[in-house]
Every structure is written in structure tokens, then in C-alpha cells.
């Protein structure tokens, strides 16, 4: 094993995952854990430091992930660039050490989303009239303070009124001091993001040199979750299902194609990575009934997944929470797209899932976070063994944790036990 060159290992590991996705039996069940702050926690780096110093996060990732024999390493994109949020004046997150006091958490706290009714119930009509204009003038400034200049962005159609608008009216917008400041900040933020992306790239290149492929970089969300998180808020969208069902369906419809286009466009940044991570939030059991799921959540989500597949990408919905009762829907979709997607589970019954759609979709998951944090290595080994026994047959199974992969607070010995169990029980053939 130690004889193999990193280049050979890299190829082998990638192939192993590819086979699992394509529902062909690889030589061994692949293991591809996802993380948020696990690597920086292991190195004693505070969450604030990790978020403000991407190089440190990348260095920690290189050291920590090189010590495991994983088939693909996680992107470290989940350690969000805090400095960028500061520059933009982001309001939909709170994070450790934020410049703005209202967004600031303590150094050891993970960033957390701020639920809000960013779009009001009575603004649907305004959205429908001009989605782009509404998002630009109303929503962007509510999400990020620097975009308040956009509130006065002129109506492009006014340019049709002639030279006055073209030569004077339009340029006037750019002379406004808040607008000037906005573009300056945006330039500063963009520069920072370029640096951040370079750091991610350096990390990927270094891991490649060591024989480890990357899992994915690209992500997108279900249209329902986009409306819930970035527009109406969870409470708002739930009430809309009763009070404004037609409007809600219409906005979900409008957001579907752009979600596909935006994700396909992003994939150009790392064309060798086909998997698209889709963290699902509000469609889980408990968050709506079956009828609502069927009406509001599933149709546009499946259209997004279909769109990605058509463009050669591999959707990997992460079914956070419980979805066992929704398995018939998952089966129906997988049947139409055999071997072209990954279903990643949190608290669902994956062994039952294997029986229902294991012939059509690759299953990923679901070692519980609570086990990795509080259990013993022996418990972890036992759990991984059970998952492999229940899901590995015929390929189509990848080992990872449940929620967010490996929790930040997971014990190193448990992560080791999880990895070793794959090598002990997951071999199809020598």
C-alpha cells in the first residue's frame, strides 16, 4: 500500500468514489467525510481565527486530513470568509469576532444564520413585476449594509427616454457618495474573495500532491429553502403556504431556472469537480406534511436536480433531519436518474433506503454526530460496520457522518475508528 505513488493513489481514490456513484462495486467502500471546523478545532485554532485567517484553516486542513486515509477530502469552504462579511456588512449571519456588534459572537462560537423576514408578505407583487429590480433595490440592501446604494439604482428602461437619461440621469447614480462607497467596498471585497479562492485552490493542489482528491466545491439550494432563508423567513413561508399558496408557487417557479444556471456557471471554476452539494433544510419530516412537500418543496427541487444532471453535474442533496417517510419520492426520482446522483442522509434509516432505492442512487452517510462526539471508538466501529453491512452490497455506498459530516467537537479517536472500520469491513475484494 505504502508503495503507491500519490499520483496513483489520487487516481485510485477518485475512481473508487466514481464507481460508488455509478453503482458499480469498487474494491472498497469509499469514505469521504465532510467537515466545518473539525480540522481547526483539532489544531486548537479558535473559530474566529479560522474564519479570519483562511491560510490557517487551510494549513490545519492539510495537516489533519493528510493523517487519514480518506478517499476524497472535504472542501474547507464551510469555514466562511468572515472578513468578506465585514466588508459587505452582512446581516444574515452572526459569526465570531464580527466587526459589527449586532452580528458578533464569541471566538469559540460557530457562525449561525439569522432568521428574518427579509421580504415582507405584501411584497410578492413587487417581486413579480420585476424580480431583478426588487432583489437589487430591496433585498440586497437588507442582506448587506453596503448595498444600500442599490436602493436608488435607476430603472434601465428610463434610458429609452433619450439622451438626457443616458448622458445625465444614469451617470448621476454612480456619482452618489453611498454608491461610490459601495463600489469601493465591493472592489475590496472582491479582492479579498480572490485571495480566499486562491487559498482554497492552494489547499486542493497540496492535497492532490499528497494523493488526495477533493470531494466538491459547488453548492446550491432547493428553491423553497432559498425563499425560506433569504426572502420570507421560515415563519413567513410557512404562513404563505396557507395565506398565499399561489404566490409562493409562482416565486418558487421563477427561482428554479436561475438556480440551475447559476450553479452551472459556478461549476466552471472547478470543472473537474462534478458533485454539487445541496444542503436541504425545510423539507424534512416535521417541517411540512406530505401534501405540502409534494406541492411546494419537491417539484422545484427535482427540477433543479434534473437541470444539474442535464449539464453533466452530480447533485448531492443532503437530507438534513429525517426523511425516511419521504423515501417513496426519493425512489421515484432516483429511478429516472440511475447512477447519476448521491443521496446524503442525516437521521434517516439508510438501510431501509438501500432496500428502496439502492439500485438507483448512491447513499452517503450517516454516522451520527452525537456518536462521534460522545461515543467510544468501539461504538463508532460497530455503527460503521452496521452501515456497511446494510448498504455496501453492489456498490453505491459512501461513508460519512450525518449532519455536516464530522462535527466540530468530534473526538479524534472516533474519527480514526470511523476511518479504520471502513478498511476493516468495507473491502469488496483484495
Amino acid at each position, binding site marked *: 500500500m505504502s508503495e503507491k505513488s500519490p499520483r496513483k493513489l489520487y487516481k485510485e481514490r477518485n475512481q473508487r468514489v466514481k464507481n460508488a456513484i455509478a453503482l458499480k462495486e469498487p474494491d472498497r467502500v469509499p469514505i469521504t467525510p465532510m467537515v466545518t471546523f473539525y480540522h481547526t478545532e483539532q489544531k486548537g485554532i479558535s473559530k474566529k481565527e479560522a474564519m479570519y485567517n483562511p491560510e490557517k484553516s487551510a494549513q490545519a486542513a492539510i495537516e489533519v486530513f493528510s493523517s487519514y486515509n480518506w478517499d476524497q477530502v472535504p472542501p474547507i469552504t464551510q469555514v466562511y470568509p468572515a472578513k468578506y462579511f465585514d466588508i459587505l456588512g452582512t446581516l444574515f449571519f452572526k459569526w465570531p469576532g464580527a466587526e459589527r456588534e449586532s452580528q458578533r459572537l464569541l471566538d469559540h462560537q460557530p457562525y449561525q444564520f439569522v432568521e428574518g423576514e427579509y421580504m415582507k408578505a405584501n411584497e410578492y407583487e413587487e417581486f413579480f413585476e420585476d424580480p431583478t429590480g426588487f432583489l437589487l433595490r430591496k433585498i440586497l440592501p437588507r442582506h448587506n449594509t453596503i448595498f444600500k446604494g442599490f436602493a436608488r439604482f435607476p430603472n434601465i428602461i428610463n434610458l429609452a427616454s433619450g439622451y438626457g437619461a443616458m448622458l445625465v440621469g444614469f451617470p448621476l447614480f454612480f456619482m452618489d457618495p453611498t454608491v461610490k462607497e459601495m463600489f469601493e467596498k465591493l472592489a475590496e471585497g472582491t479582492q479579498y474573495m480572490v485571495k480566499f479562492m486562491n487559498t482554497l485552490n492552494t489547499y486542493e493542489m497540496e492535497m492532490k500532491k499528497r494523493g488526495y482528491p477533493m470531494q466538491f466545491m459547488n453548492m446550491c439550494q432547493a428553491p423553497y429553502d432559498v425563499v425560506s432563508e433569504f426572502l420570507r423567513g421560515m415563519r413567513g413561508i410557512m404562513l404563505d403556504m396557507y395565506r398565499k399558496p399561489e404566490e409562493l408557487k409562482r416565486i418558487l417557479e421563477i427561482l428554479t431556472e436561475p438556480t440551475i444556471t447559476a450553479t452551472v456557471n459556478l461549476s466552471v471554476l472547478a470543472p473537474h469537480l462534478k458533485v454539487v452539494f445541496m444542503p436541504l433544510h425545510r423539507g424534512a419530516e416535521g417541517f411540512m*406534511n406530505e401534501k405540502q412537500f409534494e406541492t411546494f418543496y419537491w417539484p422545484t427541487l427535482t427540477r433543479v436536480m434534473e437541470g444539474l444532471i442535464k449539464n453533466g453535474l452530480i447533485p448531492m442533496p443532503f437530507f438534513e433531519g429525517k426523511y425516511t417517510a419521504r423515501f417513496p419520492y426519493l425512489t421515484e426520482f432516483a429511478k429516472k436518474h440511475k447512477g447519476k446522483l448521491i443521496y446524503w442522509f442525516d437521521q434517516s434509516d439508510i438501510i431501509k433506503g438501500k432496500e428502496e432505492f439502492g439500485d438507483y442512487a448512491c447513499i452517503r452517510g450517516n454516522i451520527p454526530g452525537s456518536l462521534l462526539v460522545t461515543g467510544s471508538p468501539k461504538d463508532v466501529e460497530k455503527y460503521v460496520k452496521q452501515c456497511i453491512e446494510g448498504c455496501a452490497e453492489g456498490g453505491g455506498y459512501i461513508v460519512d457522518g450525518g449532519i455536516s459530516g464530522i462535527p466540530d467537537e468530534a473526538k479524534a479517536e472516533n474519527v480514526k475508528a470511523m476511518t479504520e472500520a471502513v478498511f476493516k469491513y468495507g473491502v469488496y475484494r483484495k
Partner: protein
Amino acid sequence: MEKFIEEIVELNEEAVMNILKERLANNEDPMEIMADVKVAMKKIGDLYASNVYFLPDLIMSGEILRQIFELIVPKLKESDQQEKKGKILLGTVEGDIHDIGKDIVKFLLEVNGYEVMDLGVDVPAQVFVEKMQEFKPDIVALSGFLTIAFDAMKVTIEKIKEAGLRDNVKIMIGGGTIDERILEYVGADAYGDSAMDAVTIANKWVGAE
């Protein structure tokens, strides 16, 4: 009034408010209306417990309830306030700012006759201890969604022990990532898998129903 109860249970906002306004215009006893609301809420709770209703239904029923209370409460006399089943101190533990689960639990506990003191989110262990001394709850309910909450719950319960208050209360925990393992890890008395469990567990503890 059957129709009124039925419309609340069916979450027909407009019909509920129309009937309510009519009943108030007819000078019906607000206590009688409240009794109907209680029956309806119990039915909604049962539908939730049996997985017919889910989170959106609870939110919608809360919204209807809020509007009913807005019209009725000013008409109630102080003496009309019913006796509470017990006192519950509730909060999301330190480090975690998630409040969706906690708020639902609060809502369900309140409509089921509990007096709830809600400490909000990111509540330090020390604050739980201080508020316990002040509020003297029968039950402490700790909420948390992030894995960071595991240790925060453990620390909170340790602090309660250190303050000599552990034997005075029952402690329940809950949240998206909480399970049997975490119950054992933090040393609470029970954990709930869904928001309704909070009511079931509390009822058992205070000997109600």
C-alpha cells in the same frame, strides 16, 4: 360551539375570525369562547402528536390564536385566569442562537397550561442557575441545535448541581441533534424527539392528565 372549534382545528383563519367577531358582538361570555379555544388547541396538539399536523400547522394555529387572544384577553377578568399546571424555565444553551425549536416548545407548553419563563438563546449556565433561584421552576428545559450544545448542556446541568438545585427540578433537553446518547452524556432526566414530547414529558412529571 362546534363550528368555531372545527374552524380553528382546520386552521381556517378567516372563518375563525368571522365567527369570533359575531360571538363577541352577541355578547357571549369570553370564558366560554376561551373554553372552546382550549378544546380546539387540544385537538391541534393531538393532530401534531399523531403526525397529521406539522410545524407549519403549529405556526398557523399560533397565528390564529394570537388574533383570537388580541380580541378576547382585554375582555377577561383577572379572576378568569386559570391555574397553571407548573412552572418551566426554558432556554437555548450557551453558544447556540437557534430559537425555532425552543419557540415551538414554548408555544405548546403555554397552550397546554404551563407557565413558561423563556430565557432566550445563547444562555450561559450561570443565568439558568440565577433564574432558577428567582423563578423556582418545576422543570428546566434546555434547547440546542448545534453540536456545541452538547457540552453547553452538560456544563449547565453541572452548574445546577453545584448550586445545590439539581434535586429541586426535573430537566429535559431537546433539539435537532439531540438523542439518547446526549441524554446520557449531559445527565438530564429526559429528552424529546419532537416539540410535543416536551408536553408529554412535563405532564408525566407534574402528574397532569
